[in-house]
């Protein structure tokens, strides 16, 4: 006698209970607080804010806690929350040239106005596990210096001599594209491409950017400038008739300087690749800048032959919330279709063996 499987509702409830239990872990260990996550796992928070497309440290920390440290799951939580928020409009473009810089480096000049500022970076740490961090401790207070008044962007310095293409003029009246509000169609303009890359999975962009360096759509990049710090955000209030400051956000920006374009009528100049992210997300912005430059192949009349140059390929597969959903949906039952495949396969095999057992008769079909 066969009894059909039932009781899925209770199974789901019990699974959620068990998940909550596992999330908490050993109850003798103090529970982690959102401020601990926000302060001490800050780069994870930055990544969740960037790919979650929502600048809110506390929510990102909550998402990380709820997701048990699974950052893609945390990004998903933030995105789903973001989708329910009312929107009042778009802020004025942030002026990263006026950034309160905490870190700023250029690989293209030995020294630059405003100087090279290492800031908080892993770059020259020796990757030796530090046993002292296993316990509690209080690190030394950071060294301080007078902030420099002016830190012009390296690309602006190059631009003054016409050595790099100007940033594309934007039509102030043109609406800002938003792929969360309009269905995407191809070819996509750079505003939508940059939005897609800003939300894109860091690992996916890292691999694509890396592939361009290894020859799959090489663009000969130099890290013109990477800067991280705080920028003012302003919102133009129609009622007031002027831009109202909303506060400051920590952001990272990378401007890649890439090999030339030029023609019989146009003097050769460097080209740009751009990356921008919330928080200190340097790897993300560098990868983004490489891929942005590669995706400009059509506009710069380069032959499109590598994955990183193919906007449809890149934009369709860059989103980790989409990707993880579809990959993981294979967990869902598919037994109806599998049964249909089984039936077909059994039929094909029966015909195969039948034909094989009658060697004299030619395969009829």
């Amino acid at each position: 006698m066969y009894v059909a499987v039932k009781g899925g509702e209770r199974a789901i409830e019990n699974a959620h209970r068990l998940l909550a239990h596992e999330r908490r872990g050993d109850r003798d260990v103090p529970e982690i607080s959102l401020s601990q996550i926000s302060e001490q796992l800050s780069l994870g928070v930055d990544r969740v804010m960037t790919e979650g497309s929502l600048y809110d440290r506390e929510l990102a920390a909550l998402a990380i806690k709820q997701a048990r440290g699974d950052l893609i799951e945390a990004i998903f939580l933030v995105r789903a929350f973001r989708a329910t928020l009312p929107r009042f409009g778009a802020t004025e473009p942030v002026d990263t040239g006026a950034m309160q810089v905490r870190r700023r480096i250029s690989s293209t000049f030995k020294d630059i106005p405003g100087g090279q500022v290492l800031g908080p970076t892993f770059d020259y740490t020796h990757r030796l596990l530090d046993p002292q961090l296993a316990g509690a401790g209080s690190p030394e207070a950071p060294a301080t210096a007078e902030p420099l008044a002016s830190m012009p962007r390296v690309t602006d310095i190059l631009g003054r001599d016409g050595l790099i293409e100007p940033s594309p003029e934007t039509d102030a009246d043109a609406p800002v594209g938003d792929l969360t509000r309009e269905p995407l169609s191809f070819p996509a303009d750079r505003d939508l491409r940059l939005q897609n890359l800003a939300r894109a999975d860091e690992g996916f962009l890292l691999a694509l950017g890396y592939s361009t360096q290894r020859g799959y759509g090489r663009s000969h990049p130099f890290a013109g400038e990477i800067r991280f710090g705080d920028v003012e955000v302003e919102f133009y209030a129609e009622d007031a008739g002027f831009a109202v400051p909303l506060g400051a956000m920590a952001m990272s920006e990378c401007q890649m300087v890439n090999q030339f374009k030029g023609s019989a009528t146009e003097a050769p100049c460097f080209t740009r690749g751009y990356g921008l992210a919330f928080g200190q997300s340097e790897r993300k912005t560098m990868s983004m800048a490489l891929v942005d430059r590669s995706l400009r192949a059509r506009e710069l009349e380069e032959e499109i032959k590598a994955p990183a140059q193919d906007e449809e390929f890149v934009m369709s597969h860059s989103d980790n919330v989409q990707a993880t959903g579809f990959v993981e949906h294979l967990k869902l039952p598919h037994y109806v279709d599998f049964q249909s495949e089984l039936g077909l396969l059994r039929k094909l095999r029966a015909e195969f063996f039948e034909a094989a057992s009658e060697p004299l008769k030619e395969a009829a079909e």
Partner: protein
Amino acid sequence: MNATAYNFAYLDEQTKRMIRRAILKAIAIPGYQVPFASREMPMPYGWGTGGVQVTAAILGPGDVLKVIDQGSDDTTNAISIRKFFARTAGVATTTSTGEATVIQTRHRIPEAPLHSGQVLVYQVPIPEPLRFLEPRETETRRMHALGEYGLMHVKLYEDIARFGHIATSYAYPVKVNARYVMDPSPTPKFDNPKMDDCPALQLFGAGREKRIYAIPPHTRVVSLDFEDHPFTRYRFDAPCALCGADDSYLDEIVTDDRGSRMFVCSDTDYCEGRQAAGHRGTESAAPHKESAHG
């Protein structure tokens, strides 16, 4: 940090308007995939976000909702989606195909004939029937624009040359109203004929791929085939072991590790209805019902 005050049926009104406009165009152009700005839903892409958005955009307080996955009301994802709408829209839910006004489905069309007061909402993973032949959206869109479907016929014909049969057993492409080739979602091809001249409205939602499409009631839906290789349905040749039905699509249940199997209706409501009406199969026993379906 308060995220609890969600709108009726979860979606905000602006999103519903956008989806509703897409649904109207989808109905007006049967089989054509209307792009829409799919939202991030509180469930993963690939798990029914397209169907959920379509259902959320049409559902009203007077509706009676049924949700099935693999033909069953009791698969975990069906339960999860049904609970989502019971909670966010407060609608009545049912497992009865006949009583439902809106049926959201993944991978099956119910066995009981649908009627004109119903809307069938399909969850669709890959809405583009040409996608596995041509990965580029720009190309497939051009093919649809020109009604140029030679590639699909070449693929089906290559199957015949290689296997002696069309080797597509689910998500079997159809032509809608003699114009658009359409993906019926990954239903077994057994279900394809049910789409033709169906009295109910059929809506298809693909959340990750951001497409909505539709088949109006009483619309011609033809499975692609060849004169010398006509479309055939597949069904395991046995009666249901529980209700004895010989016209329903069957699940194969592996009952031990020595090769024993039994076959039972995939549509659990159909099977239970037949058993309640006194029909019996070789392994009959009324499946014990959970007390409430939420």
